[in-house]
């Protein structure tokens, strides 16, 4: 076991939290790193797994971390062919080691200097890194994006966004690359991935995807995860959709991962977390090939069912919504939970193809469809999306019931309850606190609701007034009829009629005698 080496610029006491790693990065590196190289440098804080992978593919590995504590912990955890160095990047460059064949700086160049290091801006730090590389070096370099949606939508003011590592305003750097093109140029990269938390998406695929398409779904899923613990101004998904529409999704990613050098293995279009594994996807024209657990499947690069339904709802086109729901009902099956945001129309048939996420379920088709619509309703309302249905339908199960009937399913309380349960199981984890726009929108909605309810009371009272008028009219009519009747009774014609009736009785002696007898008995 080697000892920890020290170069200029180490930090003590210090630790860099959340070292870069994760299953998706490991999968990418697994594809990219040559099976055998001579010298590998891992610069910056990376997980033990990343270092172990590098060690498995290289004769020797040097790991540079600025924290002495981190270095000591790594030293205890890694294999013999790994040399742990503590200090700053410029310190290592100053020691003029032999060029490395492979450089892994996936954590980026923001955690490679110490408090005693010179004030190197981003290009200067990159230049220090290249001092350690040869002309054929394969390098993987992470870059944090200052133009990321997570930054643009950050609710905190600038002076509250960064912590103890900002002993110099590291992010106030006009020379830092802040677009995919700038990163490619600054690093001379061959391939660039946009990083959305742990999701890696090739920037070319990110540029061509559009809202609701599989690529955008992968990116937004990662983006939402990245912003889950951050106070936000607005939902990230809305901005991401707008960016995707403009072909700028890669430009607003939280960061990038650049690959420089051609000596690596082939990599895939996308890597994304999938439970405990990794989902790997390749885009080929208008179709994706997806594999999560060894099996591959084809996925059309079309807009998701949810996107299409939301669009119809926003256009208030209920007939088209109804027709689409009928088509969905005809297709629905019990092969797993139906996630409408991860379900895509099959261009070749009238059916649909399940997307990246597979959630097995023992539920029946109707229950799965009920769950799909419960989830659709949740996302429609929480997203404050436009739709044509009155509040009394959305506040109850009426809307889901109606959607189910559009799909040919008769809803029952049990079915709706089961659908609710399944939908809750697959619901995205909530954010630590709602974003500001949602808070304001909820407050405004409550205000409008109060005004509308007051209006409803007004309307009901006025209806009562109409009804009162109606009752008065009828009462008047009844009085008039009664007066007419009274007048009629006093008229000579009626008197004559009454007299005639009496005489008619006397004219029939038998009836008259009977009536007389009854009268006597009663008295």
């Amino acid at each position, binding site marked *: 076991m080697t000892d920890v080496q020290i170069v200029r610029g180490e930090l003590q006491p210090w630790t860099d939290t959340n070292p870069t790693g994760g299953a998706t990065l490991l999968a990418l590196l697994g594809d990219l790193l040559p099976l055998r190289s001579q010298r590998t440098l891992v610069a910056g804080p990376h997980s033990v797994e990343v270092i172990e992978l590098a060690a498995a593919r290289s004769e020797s590995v040097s790991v540079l971390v600025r924290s002495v504590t981190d270095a000591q912990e790594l030293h205890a955890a890694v294999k013999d062919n790994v040399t742990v160095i503590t200090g700053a990047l410029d310190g290592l460059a100053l020691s003029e080691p032999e060029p490395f064949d492979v450089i892994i700086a996936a954590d980026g160049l923001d955690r490679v200097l110490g408090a005693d290091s010179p004030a190197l801006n981003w290009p200067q730090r990159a230049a220090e890194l290249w001092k350690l590389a040869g002309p054929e070096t394969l390098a993987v370099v992470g870059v944090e994006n200052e133009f990321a949606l997570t930054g643009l939508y950050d609710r905190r003011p600038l002076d509250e966004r960064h912590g103890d590592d900002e002993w110099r305003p590291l992010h106030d750097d006009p020379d830092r690359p802040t677009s995919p093109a700038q990163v490619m140029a600054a690093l001379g990269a061959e391939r660039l991935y946009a990083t959305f938390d742990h999701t890696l998406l090739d920037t070319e695929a990110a540029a061509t995807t559009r809202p609701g398409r599989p690529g955008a779904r992968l990116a937004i899923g990662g983006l939402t995860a990245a912003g889950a613990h951050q106070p936000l101004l607005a939902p990230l998904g809305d901005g991401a959709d707008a960016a995707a529409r403009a072909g700028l999704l890669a430009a607003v990613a939280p960061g990038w991962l650049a690959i420089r050098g051609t000596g690596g293995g082939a990599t895939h279009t996308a890597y994304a977390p999938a439970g405990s594994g990794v989902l790997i996807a390749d885009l080929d024209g208008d179709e994706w090939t997806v594999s999560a657990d060894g099996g591959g499947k084809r996925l059309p690069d079309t807009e998701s069912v949810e996107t299409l339904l939301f669009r119809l709802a926003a256009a208030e086109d209920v007939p088209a919504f109804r027709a689409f729901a009928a088509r969905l009902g005809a297709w629905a099956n019990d092969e797993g939970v139906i996630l409408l945001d991860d379900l895509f129309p099959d261009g070749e048939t009238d059916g649909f193809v399940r997307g990246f996420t597979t959630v097995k379920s023992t539920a029946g088709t109707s229950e799965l469809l009920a769950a799909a619509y419960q989830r659709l309703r949740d996302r429609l309302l929480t997203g404050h999306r436009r739709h044509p249905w009155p509040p*009394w339908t959305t506040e109850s199960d009426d809307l889901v019931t109606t959607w189910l009937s559009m799909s040919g399913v008769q809803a029952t309380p049990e079915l709706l309850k089961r659908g609710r349960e399944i939908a809750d199981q697959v619901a995205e984890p909530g954010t630590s606190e709602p974003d500001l726009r949602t808070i304001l929108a909820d407050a405004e909605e409550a205000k409008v609701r109060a005004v509308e309810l007051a*209006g409803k009371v007004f309307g009901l009272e006025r209806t009562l007034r*109409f009804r009162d008028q109606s009752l008065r*009219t009828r009462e008047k009519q009844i009085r008039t009829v009664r007066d007419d009747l009274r007048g009629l009774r006093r008229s000579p014609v009626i008197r004559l009629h009454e007299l005639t009736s009496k005489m008619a009785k006397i004219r029939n002696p038998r009836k008259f005698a009977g009536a007389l007898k009854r009268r006597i008995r009663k008295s």
Partner: protein
Amino acid sequence: MHHHNWYYGQQHILARYCGLPDDFPPRIPGYLQHGWNVGCGWNPVHEFFDGAWRFVWSDAPRRRGHSLGRRAYAVTGAPMLYLMDLEPDLGRVPEPERKGTLWFLFHGWDAPGIGAKIHGDHQRLIDEIKETETEPVTISLYYTEFDRPEVRKVYEDAGFEVICFGKRGWNYEGTDRKFLYKQLKAFRQFKRVASNRLATAIFYGVAAGCVPAVYGDAMELEGDNPLFGGQTRIARLWPDMLGKDIDLATARAITDDELGKQFVMPPAEMRMLFDWNQRD
């Protein structure tokens, strides 16, 4: 929620369609459009209260209302379409036996104290009808004209049969709940439907299988509010629906749009939309 919803027995028809009693239909939580309209579904100065939904026949009034800053619209399709569904055989005769023209005179309107009369050259209109129609003509007058002898007599004296389908009512009183039933029954027996203005009856007639015609003096309505553009706007938007010989296929397509045929919904969906499901 509003007594206009009872006009022509429309609310009663929808209640019946939903399987509910139609003698006293349940309340609609808003306003139901009661006639074809070139605006937002109601007259230009109609008042609405907050929180009331606007239930219109087709998507165009919804869009126009939206442009006026109004929200909370739902498109239902015209109640007459639901009646046609409920009464598939009412008045129906074999197609070759349909004959004559049911001619609707543009009518004034009734509201106690604030109604409005029409003014125009009835004789000139009669002459034009006689010139145009080749089969017997029945003139339909709304009661506002039917009850004006000086108007009714002109048409009777011209040799036309003159009929009236009843009153739409006011404040829940006087509504002829069979108004649309009677109209539907009549439409299904006539070959043509005509009027001096493009109006609801023309669309109903086309929906019931009549060949339409719109011609003659459009007449003036007292206090007519031209905010929505009046007759000239109608001529710009629906030129295919004006004239003595209108292409039937085109008229049917336009009628389907204006009556919101594609928006007709199943009873269960309508019960939800009107909040007519029992909740307790």
